[in-house]
């Protein structure tokens, strides 16, 4: 059967290599998106440092940064990133049930992360209009929450297609996507952690 021109115009995401290792265009797109998210967080960190350098009292009086929350959030993110690679492991082994379970756990961990981060934000009583610290604190937290929410979205879409049998050892691209994006979400958090909890 000869392949028509329409069929040959399939995007690279549908062209797995013979060895099943071809990460495809979707993976490189996600890597580019993840790098962009990390650089955005780096820009926010730079803004934080710039405002800090021009402010006498930083953080303002009454603001206590509790490292307990930062450590808990970091552990959650590390677990989430690890689970992302578990997804890829299961997809490449063709174990659909394990892949679905891993994706569900990844989504749950990222949801827990957002839950705790919003709790910390509420407890801080800082808003975007409170003061300069509040503005930047709100910005870095909101950006991190947005990235984590997109991580849930990516994992959810991967889960749907795993359950639909559209991801497997012959076409593991979305497994790579879930693994890499989970890692980048963690990297974004660790940039924020360095900014808020280490540099302060």
């Amino acid at each position, binding site marked *: 059967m000869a392949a028509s021109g329409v069929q*040959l115009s399939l995007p690279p995401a549908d062209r797995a290599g013979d060895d099943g290792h071809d990460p495809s265009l979707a993976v490189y797109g996600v890597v580019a998106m993840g790098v962009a998210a990390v650089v955005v967080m*780096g*820009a926010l960190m730079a803004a934080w440092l*710039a405002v800090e350098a021009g402010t006498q009292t930083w953080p303002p009086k009454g603001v206590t940064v509790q490292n307990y929350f930062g450590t808990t959030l970091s552990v959650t993110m590390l677990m989430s990133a690890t689970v992302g690679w578990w997804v890829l492991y299961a997809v490449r082994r063709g174990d659909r049930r394990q892949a679905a379970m891993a994706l569900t756990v990844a989504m749950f961990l990222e949801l827990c992360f957002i839950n705790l981060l919003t709790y910390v934000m509420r407890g801080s009583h800082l808003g975007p209009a409170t003061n300069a610290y509040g503005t930047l604190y709100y910005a870095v937290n909101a950006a991190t929450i947005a990235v984590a929410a997109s991580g849930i979205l990516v994992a959810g879409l991967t889960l*749907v*297609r795993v359950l639909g*049998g559209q991801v497997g050892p012959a076409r593991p691209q979305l497994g790579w996507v879930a693994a890499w994006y989970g890692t980048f979400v963690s990297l974004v958090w660790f940039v924020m952690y360095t900014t808020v909890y280490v540099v302060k």
Partner: protein
Amino acid sequence: MVPLGSKALFALAGLGLIASIAYGVATKDSSATTVLGFVAVGAFALGVAVLLAGADQEPWVATDAPLAEQPPAGGRGLLPSAFPLVAAAAFGTLALAAATNVVVGVVGLVLAAVAGLGWLFQVWTEDGTYSAGYGLRIKERLLLPVGLPVGVVALVGAIAISVSRVFLALPEKGTRVAAIVIAIVILLSAFAIASSKRVARTALVLLTTFAFVAVIAAGIAGQAHGERSFEKAKGIRHYAPLPGQPSTVAASDTAGATGSSATTAAPTTTTGS
């Protein structure tokens, strides 16, 4: 061989790193150093990604290749997608919501849901494993059992909320008239549709859609107009006074037309013996 894209990104990474270090040493400004450092790291990471990606070329399939190695035939061609544009609008609206109010946020979330579900559906149906039979099976086993009840609940909720906004915005007598008119219109429409054998399906869908949109629009207008003023009850207390404390009850409750207020004694508290 390193492609041109990777070479350019590696060059950007190197220049960014040098600029970061030089600027930091010269000015002691940590913020600019950080920005340049992140740009350098990002450029390097993207350069590596481009290096590993390889050239974007069509796969070559030998004419005598086994059937399983050939691209699927017989499916429809890939459609251009509007969903990336809708997703971009959704994210823009959500970003705007952070600086405005929650209504803009809800609009952004609805747009994001439409983009996400539509995009997923398009990608799903364009996959090589998808077939009409498989689609029918998913529809019968998943979409109808789950989507139908959820859709009905959402529809009823949207109509109830919209109509309630209209009722709250109208004056008291107008609310009664509007409620009766809406009920009569629904009754007559249902009667007309049930008794007629010549109503085209397209016309019915258009009429229903128009009615739904009109109700939602009226609800939004009612919300924008605000609620009418309601009388507030004065001086009515529905709780007992605390032990040892007198409670003054408004004249309307106790003294009637005299207009005076009465003070009721609190019940005596007995403590043990």
